[in-house]
């Protein structure tokens, strides 16, 4: 993983309302940060793996998602898949700055300017 991606990714957990974030490399290796005891790194890895499994049915249904957002009562879960198969996961609290930043973060991740 190149240094500029690490810097970009390391800044995400400090965002107000960011409960957890993680990234899954094409080789399956994951890095995750959780906000509290509810979201340890192992759980983030599991979530990334579960979503990676859902990506195939979406592609099979003729959807090529740039991202998907799972809106729950108490939080929003955003997954962003890059063409190089790197997967980003963001878990944010509703009504916070983080939820308003989701699109910008997703676009930055997809833009390929972060390597």
């Amino acid at each position, binding site marked *: 993983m190149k240094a500029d991606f690490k810097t970009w990714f390391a800044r995400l*957990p*400090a*965002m*107000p*309302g960011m*409960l957890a974030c993680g990234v899954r490399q094409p080789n399956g290796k994951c890095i995750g940060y959780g*906000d*509290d*005891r*509810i979201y340890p790194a192992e*759980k983030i890895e*599991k*979530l990334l793996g*579960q979503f990676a499994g*859902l990506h195939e*049915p*979406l592609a099979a*249904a*003729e*959807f*090529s*998602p*740039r*991202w*998907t*957002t*799972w*809106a*729950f*009562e*108490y*939080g929003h*879960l955003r997954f962003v898949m890059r063409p190089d198969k790197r997967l980003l996961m963001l*878990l944010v*609290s*509703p*009504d*916070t*700055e*983080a*939820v*308003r*930043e*989701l*699109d*910008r973060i*997703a*676009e930055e991740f997809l833009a390929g300017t972060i390597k």
Partner: protein
Amino acid sequence: MPNTKKIQPDRRILIVDDDHDDLATAGEAFRELSGERWEVRLATDVAEALAVLQANKVALVVLAVNTPVLDVALLLGSFGRQHPPFKKAVLAHPATDEVRAASLAAGADRFFEKPVSAEGLKSVFEKLCELLDWTSPPGLQGVLRSVGLADIVQMECLGRESSVIELFHEQPLGRIYIEDGLIIHAVCGEISGERAFQKLLALTGGTFELRDFELPPERTINRTWEFLLGEAQRLRELSGQRSKAGENLATGAKGVSSEPSGQAAEMLICSAAGEVLYNWQSPAPAARVALLRNVARQAEKLIPDLQLGKLDRVEIQMAGGRAILQPRADRMVFVRITNPA
């Protein structure tokens, strides 16, 4: 020796805790850990907290919750939106899932177990520093641009839900009241009724929140939601055409752009068992039903781990538009919206 360090307003924090000893300990610890750079205000109840917020610009409110003495949602809610925006952190003891869920639902930026040791206080202090240091980068994109208010209104009406949609763009802009799937009232600043509804639907910047239904002060709308959303679409297209023609439209709404939010391309409603109840222009109903059921199954797997409450919807953002899937216990909804040409 007088303290000559100048404290910036962005380092003024307010701690609210009804336990006097814990309050004093946390206040002293945060002052020391910050090297006296934090101005720490203390309050033991809502009235004191509101008085501090009225008199000062506060960057961060740290709310200690000793359940069930304090109702976190009520307290965070009571701060309301009348004050300049501030960040919010909740320290709970015990840090139960219920308090955590209530805190997040009420807009807390961070949730921690209330520290009981010096090390714990230091750890929380470091995380609060990160929260305070966070600044918004320029070029924010509002939630309305990605989700589409019309989509939410449509889904609430299709589902015969009762709710209040509140819209913000730095400050509250207006509300749309939906009762049993009927749009019954809208207010936008000084105006109300259909005009207010159309003005709110024309917004493409800002955010919105879906709140529990409450009775509006009056009922000002009696047209069907299909007509109202159709009219909103027509007005958007008209606005777009005029913009292309170089006309100067006086829309009168702050933050309004000429970008249409998209056009419904297909819609499907089915029972939880997969029986198609309504199909409008879906080219592959069986595939849509299969997708909805797959999403519902995945949600069942995700929900216990996430502890985020019920799934409301899944949004799939694609290059040419987006799809919204709503897998609920009694019925499932699929809506696809295409980007404007």
